[in-house]
């Protein structure tokens, strides 16, 4: 049971890779990449968890009164999510340009070069 979060993280990553490799639509591929990326959130948060721990925010709990989870991995996850969202936006804008220039979003049909 205690290995479940690690298993979930690995499963999410592999499923994202499977989706990327078999994708027939670039928008779907960008979504799969986001799935791969969310596996890192699960892994980071799982590494930082402490049983019975609460959020490491001391505005309403006295320091030392309760165990808190690891704040480092939470900070990493937070920035990871923001970066993930903007990079997804960048990739989607690339997809828009591909769709305009080649009139398709199927990666298998994008084999030819065009100036």
């Amino acid at each position, binding site marked *: 049971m205690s290995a479940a*979060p690690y298993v979930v993280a690995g499963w999410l990553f592999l499923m994202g890779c499977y989706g990327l490799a078999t994708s027939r639509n670039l928008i779907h591929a960008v979504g799969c990449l986001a799935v791969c990326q969310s596996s890192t959130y699960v892994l980071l948060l799982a590494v930082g968890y402490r049983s019975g721990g609460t959020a490491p925010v001391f505005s309403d709990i006295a320091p030392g009164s309760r165990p808190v989870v*690891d704040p480092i991995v939470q900070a990493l996850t937070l920035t990871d999510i923001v970066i993930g969202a903007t990079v997804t*936006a960048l990739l989607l804008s690339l997809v828009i340009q591909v769709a305009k220039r080649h009139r398709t979003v199927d990666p298998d049909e994008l084999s030819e070069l065009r100036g």
Partner: protein
Amino acid sequence: MTMRLRMWVLALGGLGVAVLYVLACLDLPSFGGHRHPYGDRAVRAALARHTANTISSVNFDQRALDTLGEESILFGSVLGTVVLLRQTRDEDRQQPEPARVAPSVRRYALFALPVTLLIGLYIVAHGQLSPGGGFQGGVVVATSLHLLYIAVDYRALERIRPLGLYEVADAAGEAAYVLVGAAALPAGWAFLGNFLPYGTFNTLASGGTVPLLNAAIGVEVAAGVVVLLARFLDQAVEIVSTDEEAEGRA
């Protein structure tokens, strides 16, 4: 590569990753364990610097230089999107038509707009105290403006959203972060050192430079998301390709 071959390569690679991942996980400390040396030190450092929200302290004080890098990725992505989604020579801009909105949707969105804006600003301002900060609050602020698109129409959104100003604000947020970091140098601190007085624990003016850096990030994220969404909305609403227009006419 045929689909069959591709699946074989994928299966091989996936199996390899799975085996290596399981081997790596066997060496990880068990889930929910009580040994978190870095976490304990980060909590102690945050409390010593009077920052109630340890995560903000990690992001904007202890690891402030890393956050500068992450913020630059954000800035670079926004810049890349702006360049990729510009209007090209074979495209025309079409004035969006005013659209009818159901009165209940309009009432709800117009009510939610100021509330959302206020919540966003609150989250940015209280980043050093409670969960939140510039990244999260910035996204909420940017979302609140787009409620006007739902409540009225695209032209109303364009009127309150002078895009040039937001592009400047995006750059100003990035610059403010670097300037706050550089301001530590004359005071004899390292770049991005927390040189301001730490203030009283659990009040708005605590944490030294953390609230300032939070505000800089808040401005950058809010402006960046507005610019990003504006570019995508332009593509969807305003920009039409000229040959599509010709096809439509024929």
